[in-house]
């Protein structure tokens, strides 16, 4: 497993390992595959034995139907039809793709597309599989399924897998080795538990956020990280619970601690109300939202969660007034405005530089050129976008694109900010930066509503959480109330410590409330 912040060179490294995609530029050093220089391999071997799956499920697809897409890679290598047929049968059995075989690719979900992309590469029977953040565009359920498929390949077929990934909770426990890159340098290369200990011992503190919750919890509660045996460090929830059980055997101190939530301010003014909203896309279509009621109060940070296709994006579009509900009403407090940040920031850009985008947005917002200039100045400082001001929006990193789009929305001076999956595809550092930014905006009096899959993010930063299911809001409350009543749909930390601290959601919660005597002995 390959980890590190965006721009640390993970993709560049992976592309060097795939000969056909080696980036242009000056390079030195050697790359060998099975002792042979990579550049000397025959074309068919290089293409077939080293396979690569990319981040964006849609962009990798070439053909229009599933069978054709699967066969595409085999056709490229000129395999005879009989061989192709057998391999296709095999792989469809392995991934359960047979019912999808004749479907057009655009009918598939993101997860199905990514599995198909994986299968198409596997049909060449690669020895090495390179994956560049393959699950970053998928929802948690699809991501888990994808990772499980990888695990089976690795364990049952002994395929070497090199994966760069931000979803550590699932991938790190499966890895044999963890490599950490930063600024193009290799900072760590160790087995997961050893890697975890290194991050605890101070040599690699910045890597702490790349560990699963169990290890982080262990390291922040354990007295001296240097002295712990690596095999004791838990990586999964199960191991974490086992460790805590052992630790707590005999003591019974935990039950007393209660969390105090100081984020609640019940007397705030109501800004936005959805009153029994019903929405469907087509006249005969399914009701995506059904009699949904929800309120957003001044100064809140509301996180709406829900599964795939539950209608989260639709809810935001309806709340923003982009789409009109068939029944029910959206009530916005007088003189208040909303701003929407869609999932894909690329939808916002239509000019050639970031500066132009912001200026045009400023003039659309009705600001005078001087006012716009000073507003933009202020936003650039907050978003750290000054260096990229003259770049093309499409040349920025995903995080910067998102920040540019957000800055554009903020020029409209919205009172309410609606964000659609803002943490999708962000690395942990970028997530922290986003959270800080949102808290800062909240400090300026902007109320925030996000829809997200990201349980950890919501638990850490939201002031209220709600669950969207079957077209309506089925549960809502403060993060502590909301998550502690859930069994599956809660943070990893909560799943570890819930027997002792049912309301603790984050490591900070645990540290704050954990009876000091329990571990400082």
């Amino acid at each position, binding site marked *: 497993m390959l980890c590190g912040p965006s721009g640390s060179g993970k993709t560049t490294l992976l592309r060097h390992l*795939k000969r*056909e*995609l080696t980036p242009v530029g000056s390079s030195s050093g050697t790359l060998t595959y099975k002792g042979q220089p990579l550049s000397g391999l025959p*074309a*068919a071997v290089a*293409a*077939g034995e080293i*396979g*690569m799956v*990319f981040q*964006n499920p*849609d*962009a*990798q*697809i*070439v*053909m*229009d139907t599933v*069978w*054709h897409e699967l*066969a*595409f*890679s*085999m*056709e*490229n*290598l*000129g*395999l*005879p*039809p009989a061989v*192709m*047929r057998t391999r*296709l049968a095999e792989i469809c059995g392995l991934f359960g793709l047979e019912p999808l*075989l*004749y479907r*057009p*690719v*655009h009918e598939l979900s993101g997860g199905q597309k990514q599995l198909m*992309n994986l299968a198409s*590469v596997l049909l*060449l029977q690669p020895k090495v599989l390179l994956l560049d953040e393959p699950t970053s565009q998928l929802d948690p359920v699809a991501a888990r399924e994808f990772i499980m498929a990888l695990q089976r390949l690795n364990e049952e077929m002994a395929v070497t897998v090199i994966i760069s990934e931000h979803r550590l909770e699932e991938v790190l426990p499966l890895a044999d080795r963890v490599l950490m890159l930063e600024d193009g340098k290799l900072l760590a290369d160790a087995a997961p538990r050893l890697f975890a200990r290194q991050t605890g011992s101070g040599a690699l503190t910045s890597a702490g956020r790349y560990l699963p919750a169990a290890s982080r919890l262990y390291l922040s509660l354990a007295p001296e990280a240097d002295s712990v045996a690596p095999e004791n460090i838990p990586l999964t929830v199960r191991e974490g619970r086992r460790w805590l059980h052992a630790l707590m055997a005999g003591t019974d101190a935990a039950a007393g601690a209660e969390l105090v939530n100081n984020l609640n301010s019940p007397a705030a003014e109501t800004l936005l109300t959805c009153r029994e909203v019903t929405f469907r896309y087509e006249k005969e279509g399914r009701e995506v939202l059904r009699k949904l009621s929800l309120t957003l109060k001044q100064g809140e940070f509301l996180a709406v969660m829900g599964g795939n296709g539950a209608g989260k994006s639709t809810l935001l*579009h309806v709340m*923003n007034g*982009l789409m009109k509900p068939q029944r029910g009403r959206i009530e916005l407090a007088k003189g208040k405005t909303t*701003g*929407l940040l*869609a999932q*894909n920031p*690329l*939808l*916002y*850009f*239509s000019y050639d530089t970031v500066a132009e985008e912001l200026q*045009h*947005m400023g003039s*659309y917002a009705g600001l005078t050129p001087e006012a716009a200039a000073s507003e933009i100045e202020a936003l650039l400082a907050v978003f750290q976008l000054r260096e990229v001001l003259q770049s093309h929006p*499409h040349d920025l990193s995903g995080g910067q694109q998102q920040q540019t789009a957000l800055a*554009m*929305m903020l020029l409209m001076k919205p009172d309410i900010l609606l964000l659609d999956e803002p943490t999708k595809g962000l690395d942990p550092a970028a997530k922290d930066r986003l959270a800080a930014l949102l808290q800062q905006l909240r400090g300026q009096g902007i109320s925030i509503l996000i829809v997200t899959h990201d349980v950890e993010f919501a638990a850490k930063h939201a002031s209220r959480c709600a669950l969207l299911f079957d077209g309506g809001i089925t549960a809502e409350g403060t993060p502590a109330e909301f998550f502690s009543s859930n069994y599956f749909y809660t943070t990893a930390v909560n799943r570890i410590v819930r027997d002792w601290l049912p309301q603790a959601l984050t490591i900070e919660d645990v540290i704050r409330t954990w009876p000091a005597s329990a571990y400082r002995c």
Partner: protein
Amino acid sequence: MSSGFRSMHPVVALLYYAGLLLFTLLVFHPLFLATEIAGLLALLLLQGQGRQLLRSLPFMLLMAASVALLNPLFSHRGAHILFYWLDQPITLEAVLYGLMMMTMLLTIFIWFISYNYTVTTDKFMYLFAAAAPRTALLTLMAIRFVPLFQRRLRQITLIQRLRGIDAGTGSLKKRMTDGMTLLKVLLTWSLEEALQTGDSMTARGYGSTKRSTYTIYKADLQDKLVMLLLTVSGVVTLLFWVQGYGKLEIYPRMRPADFGWQEAVMYGSFCLFVLIPAGLEGKEKWLWRSSKHSNYPSDTLKKTGTRSMSYRSS
């Protein structure tokens, strides 16, 4: 649902439709054209495409009727003058010739409806890929992009409204300008992604060796048999045509067509060619119906026979 003629090997369909089009354009005889129309109509109706046919009927009739009218108005050749209109002679020959052209045009339109239904895009591409693999790949990619881009364009339209770009409101000029801006956003985004698609193709070995073709079609005995029948009957018809049979002479002077044994043989083999698909379709329909009555009196029906085992499940 594909069954009957539609589930046969694409080469059979290609042979049939290519031959049919050739005969339409070559054999200038009302009986032959009428037979062709009848054969195609029977096939379409048996395939349950009557509604599709009805929908395009007004356009077809309009085009065909205008041809039938224009010819006598602009062509004054022929010996039998019917009457004068605006000092121009309207001849029997010109009227008949116009009607012939009308029938031919109608045949071509119906041919296209039937062709579109039977030779679906992927079948066409399968045939096409053998002759021009790169062009076929390019076309297939473009075909895949169209629904994707439409979906993207909808998203872009929705979100760009937030920044005042809206093709639905304002003056005509603003709306068209905004519409073009939306297309530009789509263009930029899609071109960026195209580079990733290109990388994914290279990564999977595109261009490393000569490509082979995976096919989901298999020619069975019936396919081969039908192919043979079509070829033989088609060649026989064509041979007679080259000999000069099956031509209706209208100009310079309308002559009643003589129908000797040569014409009879030619027409017979032509009928065989035209009616094979409709026959196959009808046979299968009949098999289904009879099997429903006799073989499976219970409520669960199962597919029987090789013909109804479709290669495609959709």
